[in-house]
């Protein structure tokens, strides 16, 4: 039998025998970033449509969680750094060719905005809230008058943030599994779907729940379409990409991906939501939790499997 045997004398930590430079921190960061982007997108969108009192969970309640998600996400990113004391270098440079750079800057725009947005609603959500200082009340009033402007910035930057979570990975052509432009739209759709799921879970209003249930159904369909597209693209491409796809088509990631991400995270919640729309009663947290679970798994599996995919030479 014709064979090729490659022996390498290299055994660098985190690199060999398989790249494992990114652990749980980066996928968690991508998940939280996508989730926050999804919530903020819907908050800003429905605010601009003048629906703030109709869709309270979307515009007022769920955004209160986004500063927490974003700060946790940034903390995860920080934990991932090997040279932590130099963290600030990320914010003394802008490199447009590096997704890690403009993504970090996008977070610097979105995080403060998410805090301000939440602050302008906090007294409405928690009527007992007291700002203590007069100037804080003045600040609140000022920003309340600027909600429209903030919403416009948020609509744009939340989409950038959502798509960035995918582009961060797709920019690496050294890892064939990541190196596909469909990853940006896929992660954006999955972030939006996670955001919609969380809003649906928090909502106390039937109409709002129904709307986000429908939105989730559309987004899940879109995600499934992107996933099929992803594999079609790989299988019609070069050998390295065919091998990358095989990680999920018979390889070690096959079961977790198709069961956790596609079946439990997409197909079952889509079915439950469809069932609900047909008039049956399904507790809202059930599909929502499944969607969030599938979302986390998607990030973890793509990040891990991508590091196992490589050029052989």
């Amino acid at each position, binding site marked *: *039998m*014709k*064979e*090729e*045997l*490659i*022996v*390498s*004398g*290299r*055994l*660098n*930590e*985190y*690199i*060999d025998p398989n*790249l494992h*430079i*990114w652990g749980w921190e980066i996928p968690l960061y991508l998940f939280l970033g996508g989730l926050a982007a999804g919530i903020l997108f819907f908050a800003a969108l429905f605010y601009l449509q003048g629906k703030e009192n109709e869709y309270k969970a979307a515009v007022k309640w769920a955004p209160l969680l986004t500063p927490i998600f974003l700060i946790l996400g940034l903390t995860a*990113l920080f934990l*991932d*750094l*090997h*040279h*932590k*004391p*130099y*963290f600030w*270098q*990320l914010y*003394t*440079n802008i*490199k447009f*060719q*590096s*997704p*890690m*750079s403009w993504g*970090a800057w996008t977070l610097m725009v979105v995080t403060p905005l998410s805090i301000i947005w939440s602050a302008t609603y906090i007294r409405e959500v928690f009527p007992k809230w007291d700002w203590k200082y007069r100037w804080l009340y003045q600040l609140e009033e000022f920003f309340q008058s600027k909600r429209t402007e903030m919403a416009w910035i948020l609509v744009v930057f939340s989409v950038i943030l959502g798509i960035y979570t995918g582009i961060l990975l797709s*920019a*690496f*052509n*050294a*890892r064939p599994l990541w190196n596909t432009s469909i990853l940006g739209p896929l992660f954006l759709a999955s972030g939006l779907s996670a955001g919609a799921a969380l809003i649906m879970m928090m909502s106390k209003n039937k109409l709002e729940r129904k709307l986000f249930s429908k939105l989730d159904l559309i987004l899940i369909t879109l995600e499934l379409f992107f996933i099929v597209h992803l594999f079609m693209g790989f299988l019609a491409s*070069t050998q390295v990409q065919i091998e990358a796809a095989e990680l999920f088509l018979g390889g070690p990631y096959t079961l977790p991906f198709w069961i956790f991400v596609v079946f439990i995270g997409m197909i079952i919640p889509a079915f439950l939501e469809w069932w609900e729309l047909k008039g049956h009663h399904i507790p809202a947290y059930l599909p929502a939790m499944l969607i969030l679970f599938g979302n986390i798994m998607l990030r973890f599996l793509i990040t891990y499997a991508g*590091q196992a995919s*490589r*050029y052989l*030479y």
Partner: protein
Amino acid sequence: MRYAMAVDTKKCVGCSDCVVACQTENNVPIGYCRDWIVEVVDGTYPQLELEIRSERCNHCANSPCVRCCPTGASHYSDGGIVLVTHDECIGCGACIASCPYDARYPHPDGYVDKCTFCIHRVREGQQPACVEVCPTKCLYFGDLEDPESDVSKVLKKRKYKTLIPEAGTDPQLYFLI
């Protein structure tokens, strides 16, 4: 100026002297390496072919590691040598994930490290440590734009290949075959 290196796979015996010379010259922490030996055996027994390569960073002319670095720590220096400025590096690992040759590693001190073509020696007119020490003289280093340099001369005479040029990196490490 365009610095490059040629590795004669027909002369290399895989003794790893280049690896040890580099570790000593550059204070590479124990257990890590900036250059390494790869042996590839091809064919059907008994018709086997063996290729031995001394590998390191390819100092790519279109390097994804420089492109992906968020801080500019990874950059092009003299003659296209790709370097990492240690105290600009945050250790995010983007460059490590972006290198199709896995030529970088995270130094235990936190920053990312890799082959520098011994730029500190080259600037003084010396050869990189690996080239200097190779007992079979199978490594050639120099300026590709100078037709009289060792590397230009040997590339004119011999057949050569680069590693995964389809990765689009324009590697500057040439393997004589």
